[in-house]
């Protein structure tokens, strides 16, 4: 069958929202770095974005069914790559996350997220009943569990955690019974509780992770550690007020009080300089992006397409939630970047590849 969707079939609204969010990111990266030795970083980010848009279009042209067909091979490649990074990868900041490929350092776990979305979509699409029974859920859990364990081993708690909402949203849409959903939610709450409860957490978390949680709970005890980071971020956000201090005028941002102000804490810098009105704009755009994804899922041709789109939505939604909650001091520092706004090659490419999959599903909604 001929498969030649026209340009009008692209989700131009989605692309517009995407471009708007990227623009905010570039503006803030420029503001945060132009006066420092990192000047010019926004240019690099623009290059990544352009590259990202290109990849998105390329990925949208390949029928997602073909991609889903290769799920098993992709899964094996994913596990191999994750294993390889543990053995061969270069360590930075005490964690092995990067692998050198084509002259660039890539964060393999970003690719892993994408592959898990595909693998889960394939798996849930093949569940034939309207209700997801526990055996299928257990299988899905194991599919996610192995790469999750490998990513945790790097260690990269943040990225590992992203796999959880992908599984959760997939299972929910695949017909997880409400009572099971309730039980898992409860279990999740208990696990989070355990993480925050030192006698238990010392068995399951690394020292630096426990430290982050302690400093999140008691920022004042750790005035220069990650508690300091959260505090400085809150100061930046709060001092921005409703109207913001103006572009390039955020003292917390410009004087370097905000930690990694161009990346994980870019929302903090944005909130300081643009105020609540700017936050309203940024979060409004993210909400529009996520709702637009859900809408695309609702109009998908089949369940496989829906699961793909919703996997992407789950991953992006979780990123936004955890990152922004961290910026306002409502969550500990996890090292999860804000999609499309934070500076970073691998993370940006992941988002565009994911959106490429969404576009792919959309282009084929009327095709039979």
């Amino acid at each position, binding site marked *: 069958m001929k498969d030649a969707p026209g340009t009008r079939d692209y989700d131009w609204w989605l692309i517009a929202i995407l471009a708007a969010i990227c623009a905010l990111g570039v503006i803030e990266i420029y503001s945060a770095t132009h006066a420092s030795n990192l000047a010019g970083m926004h240019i690099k980010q623009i290059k990544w974005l352009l590259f990202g848009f290109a990849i998105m279009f390329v990925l949208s042209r390949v029928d997602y069914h073909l991609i889903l067909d290769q799920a098993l091979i992709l899964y094996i490649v994913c596990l191999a790559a994750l294993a390889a990074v543990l053995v061969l990868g270069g360590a930075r900041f005490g964690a092995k996350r990067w692998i050198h490929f084509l002259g660039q350092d890539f964060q393999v776990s970003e690719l892993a997220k994408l592959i898990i979305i595909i693998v889960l979509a394939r798996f849930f699409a093949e569940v034939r009943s309207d209700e997801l029974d526990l055996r299928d859920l257990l299988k899905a859990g194991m599919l996610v569990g192995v790469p999750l364990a490998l990513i945790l081993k790097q260690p990269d708690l943040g990225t590992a955690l992203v796999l959880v909402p992908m599984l959760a949203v997939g299972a929910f849409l695949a017909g997880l019974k409400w009572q099971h959903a309730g039980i898992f939610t409860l279990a999740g709450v208990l696990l989070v509780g355990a993480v925050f409860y030192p006698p238990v957490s010392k068995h399951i978390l690394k020292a630096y992770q426990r430290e982050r949680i302690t400093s999140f709970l008691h920022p004042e005890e750790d005035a*220069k550690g990650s508690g300091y980071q959260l505090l400085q971020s809150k100061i930046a956000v*709060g*001092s921005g007020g409703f109207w913001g201090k103006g572009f390039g005028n955020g003292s917390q941002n410009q004087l370097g009080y905000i930690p990694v102000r161009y990346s994980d804490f870019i929302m903090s810098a944005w909130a300081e300089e643009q105020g*609540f009105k700017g936050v309203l704009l940024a979060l409004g755009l993210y909400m529009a992006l996520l709702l637009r994804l859900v809408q695309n899922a609702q109009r998908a041709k089949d369940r496989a397409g829906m699961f793909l789109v919703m996997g992407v939505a789950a991953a992006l939604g979780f990123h936004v939630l955890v990152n922004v909650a961290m910026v*306002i001091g409502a969550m500990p520092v996890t090292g999860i970047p804000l999609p499309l706004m934070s500076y970073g090659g691998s993370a940006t490419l992941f988002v565009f590849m994911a959106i490429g999959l969404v576009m792919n599903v959309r282009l084929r909604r009327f095709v039979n």
Partner: protein
Amino acid sequence: MSYSFHSDNRLPQTRLAVVSYIIVGMIGLLLLGFWKLQVIDSDKYGQMAEQNRVRSIPIIAPRGRMLDRDGRVLVDNRPSFSVLLLRDDPKLVEQYLPVISDGLGISVDDLHDQLQSTRNLPKFQPIVIKPEASSADLDFIESHRADIPVLEMLSVSRRRYIPDGFLGHATGYVGEASEQQIEASNGKLRPGDVVGKSGLERQYNDILMGTDGMRRVIVNSVGKEVDHLSQQDPIPGKQVTLTIDLDLQTVAEQSLGARPGAVVALDPRTGEVLAMVSRPTPDPNDFAVRIPKEEWRKLNEDPLHPLLNRAIQAQLAPGSVFKIVTATAMLEDHSIPESFTTYCPGYGTFYGRQFKCWVYWSKKGPTSHGAASLHDAILKSCDVFFYTVGMKLGIDRLSFYGDKLGLGHKTGIDLPSEESGLMPSEQWVERVFHRKWYAGETISVAIGQGAITTTPVQLARLIGGIASGGVFKQPHMLKDAQNVAEEKFPLSEHTVERVTDGMYGVINEPGGTGGQLKLTGIEFSGKSGTAQVIGYDTRNRLGKQKKFEDNAWFVGYAPKRNPEIVVAVLVQESGQHGGEAAGPVVRDVVKAYYDKKNRKTQGTVTTADHGSTPASDAAVVAPVVAIKPEGLSAVQTHAAEGKPDPQ
């Protein structure tokens, strides 16, 4: 087209809708979080951002100088640098400690100790790691400005005093404000501020200190200055002109020499302190930076008490100087006829006990005074006469007059920590010892022995006041003092004439205890005192020991009536009589006063008011000190309550 996997097109629309609600809810919650920070708590975080950003760096105001009455500099400042350590980033500090230790010659352990002891102070507040930087230190910091980001220099000015403790007890010294002082200052003082710790430095700290300026700068997150906002210039402390006369002070210092004791010279007409010496004394220059603990301990434990300003704090038996009080009481009271005489065989027996006259122990000449009138008794300081008068007057009368003449009270001199001495009375023994007064005690008190104690400044005020007819001016050291307190205890002309005749005789008549002190052309008068530290009998039993030697007093003045200068001198444990040990010091100062006065009157034309201000015509730098009268009276009242600084 078929694929290898099954997929149908029935989509869970309800559950997808639930997911969109969750998304909207999630964004809503995040917005709520921003609303709380950016709208509700915006002011709080705005202030915190400002505190992050703006740092205030003090510019130390130089302390005011102290000048003598003729405008000559007594206390000055010299420039100096302190080395500061910026502690914002503990890791960075830790990293540079070895380099700093090498460069400044401070051991790493010492630096750690300093960091440890200041760990409770705010992180952004730099600490002084070397208060007095040498030029080598400055070179080191200057040349490493770029690569050691945690060092900073602070320009400060340090006090410079005349060396060797010259006037040291009066000027006092400065030091870093103690925690108590900071608390008591209502936020005016910050840790590390230099304040007066004793003497005039403490008394007039508010005037001398000035107000530190402030430089407001913007700093980045590692504490580096990136911009300069504003500068508030420091207001230097005000200069004060003292009543001290450098010439007299020099003579007094030299004449007393290294002997433990004190000199106080007053102008009884005004209460101005012309000279004040107390020995031994530390050199306040040694305290200008920081007193090493060991040094401080040694000073405190020194049996000679070098930190005691003997001029206002030594509380000792006045010995025969007190006979002037007994004599005044006798003449004013009229219960004893003026023609009263006693016969002194070298001792007298009162209440069944034998009291020796000092002359009994005399090594040369007669060991008795024979028959003595009041005049003779003052001249020769006959104990037997005053024993008898004391017995007849009783302790009530003695203590009434002693009290009225200022004994047992602080003089109110504008120095902190003045002592009041003690004028014993029946009430006093009842209050303190819960017993009755023994009549025998009156005999000792009548000649200035027993429980009675006085300070040198009290005796100078007392003798000067009696010779001025019972007018007592509050001793003070600030030249421009306003509203100087004055106490009056009017004495009859007859009493004053008789008593001053006696004191004139002490020096100028044959047989006087100060006969060797005569100054030609000057009506130099006075009274000697030789106070026992322990009884003569006991001392003979214990053998000769320095610490049991007599204290020598001499209070002299001139002219005989309405004196211009009165000088009280104490020489401790000299083993000599008052007239021998202390008298010459008084004479030297009085002579220096008249020498200077005569030089002025001969050498100048504008002598219209030379009597009251002997140095007003001196061509010196005009000591313009704008001290508001109300401010001054405030400090003066404070003086009486000044507590010793516990440092």
